């Protein structure tokens, strides 16, 4: 082909290529800004001390969301507390102890499957198992256990990923100095993974706070401040859904949405900061 013609064709292709990519990227960024900006702008003006400290009245149409905040903390806390040790231990098992046999492949496979199950299924299961079968009713504990199951794969995966980034040579180095396996894990491997595990944990919390479908079916919708693990309560996400779908109060809906976004943004920001600040120190 005539080299000059070839060059011109290439030039045209280049312009189209970069044009489209730039356009799509810009669109994505714009959507992001609009979503967050719109909700925060509309919501912030309605967030005040009263909103944060008062209990909701008239199904949330008036008053604040104090009991909802407490409920959110409760459910999320229970879920994370249950999931964390199990998740980390499971990840350690996969990376350090599991020998590549059929059983392990299966266990690992099911862990991945668990990650892909939609939240509404967890909700159905939680409803059938914890609420009905175990008779826990709509309660913090039912929701917490369901949440624990949901965030478990996230935790396992995050921990596993960061365990995997620990170079094999650290393990060899440690064992060759006469360390036992558990000494190696606690003394060398886990310290390397702190940022990774922490990031996973925070992301899990974020996911738990934002969850609504599963919570709705397992925790119920009580607007009272829960006093025990077996009380029903309501989380912010569920509250937001209820407000939005029933159109009770635009103001309260925006305020709740803004608060929810804010919390989640802070949490994710923290996770990101941790992984970028500390993640680099693993070296190699």
């Amino acid at each position: 082909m005539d080299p000059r013609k070839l060059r011109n064709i290439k030039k045209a292709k280049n312009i189209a290529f970069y044009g489209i990519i730039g356009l799509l990227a810009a669109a994505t960024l714009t959507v992001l800004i609009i979503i967050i900006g719109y909700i925060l702008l509309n919501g912030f003006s309605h967030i005040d001390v009263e909103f944060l400290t008062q209990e909701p009245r008239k199904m949330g149409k008036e008053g604040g969301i104090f009991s909802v905040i407490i409920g959110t903390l409760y459910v999320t806390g229970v879920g994370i507390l249950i999931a964390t040790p199990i998740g980390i231990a499971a990840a350690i098992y996969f990376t350090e102890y599991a020998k590549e046999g059929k059983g392990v492949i299966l266990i690992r496979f099911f862990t991945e499957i668990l990650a892909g199950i939609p939240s509404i299924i967890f909700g159905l299961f939680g409803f059938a198992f914890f609420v009905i079968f175990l008779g826990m009713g709509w309660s913090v504990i039912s929701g917490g256990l369901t949440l624990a199951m949901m965030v478990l794969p996230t935790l396992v995966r995050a921990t596993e990923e960061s365990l995997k980034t620990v170079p094999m040579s650290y393990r060899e180095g440690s064992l060759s100095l006469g360390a036992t396996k558990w000494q190696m894990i606690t003394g060398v491997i886990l310290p390397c993974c702190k940022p990774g595990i922490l990031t996973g944990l925070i992301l899990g919390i974020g996911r738990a706070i934002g969850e609504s479908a599963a919570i709705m079916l397992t925790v119920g919708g009580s607007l009272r401040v829960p006093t025990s693990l077996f009380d029903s309560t309501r989380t912010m996400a569920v509250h937001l859904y209820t407000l939005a779908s029933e159109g009770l109060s635009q103001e309260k809906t925006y305020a709740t949405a803004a608060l929810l976004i804010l919390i989640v943004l802070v949490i994710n920001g923290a996770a990101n900061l941790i992984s970028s600040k500390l993640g680099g120190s693993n070296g190699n």
Partner: protein
Amino acid sequence: MKTYEKAIEKVILLSAIMATISVGLITFFIFRSGLPVLLEYGIIDFIFGTTWSPTNGDYGILPLIAGTLSITIGSLIIGVPTGIACAVFLAEILQKKWAKAFKFSIELLAGIPSVVYGFFGLVVLIPAIREYILPIYQFFDPEVSQTGFSVLAGAVILAIMILPTIVSMSENSIAAVPVEFKEASLALGANKMETIVRVLIPAAKSGILSSIILGMGRAIGETMAVLLITGNMAKIPGTILDPVATLTGTIAMEMGYASPTHQQVLFAVGIVLFVVIMILNIIAQLSVRKIGGNA
């Protein structure tokens, strides 16, 4: 020392099995609750029945399946090209520090609870569709639904929701392509575009593919957002402005007031959803393992 180590190993093994136990329990209880009614009604009638009216004893979920499918496909059509374009833009074109900020923002999108997306769709997208898209559409088809709750709304919102998954996984896998490939291509006299299209994207294809599958899974399983914006009409959609109901949305919405039989039917819907997701997951797992194997 030895026994101590052995004990630790056992405890850890138990934790590892927890996920498996969970999946088992989930499967068991969903099927236990939904299977009787499913068998009683007949699987074929259940899946291919075109009328969903649980209060009248009509349990045909084809409209629900059609609803889920239509918004899922719609979201992929919008989300996949955008996501890959963003990934390329981030990994190869944008300066490092800006790319980092951009990626950070994208990850923020991932963290926003789905119910917030639903709310946003409800207060911004639906009115926008009513105001701007509908008049144009009406020009061709005066009979079209006028509420704004629609396949289109669901697809757009879901596209935004799956975008972070696609962007960040694709970006990771493009960035993970060794710089040596890039250098080799440039050293052979290729320009940047040729390098991206012919070397980087093919080298990252397994990662990109699995990001798409994962995004699809998320789109199918999404509940609260679609619940708020698709209109929840159990009808097979004719146009993209028709309202639809999805499998997930139907379960979430009707569970609250369902009679015991109705509940069982919803569990049966859950079974269908569960099976579809499982199949998709398995495909994703296998494809990742197969493609990832030789890289």
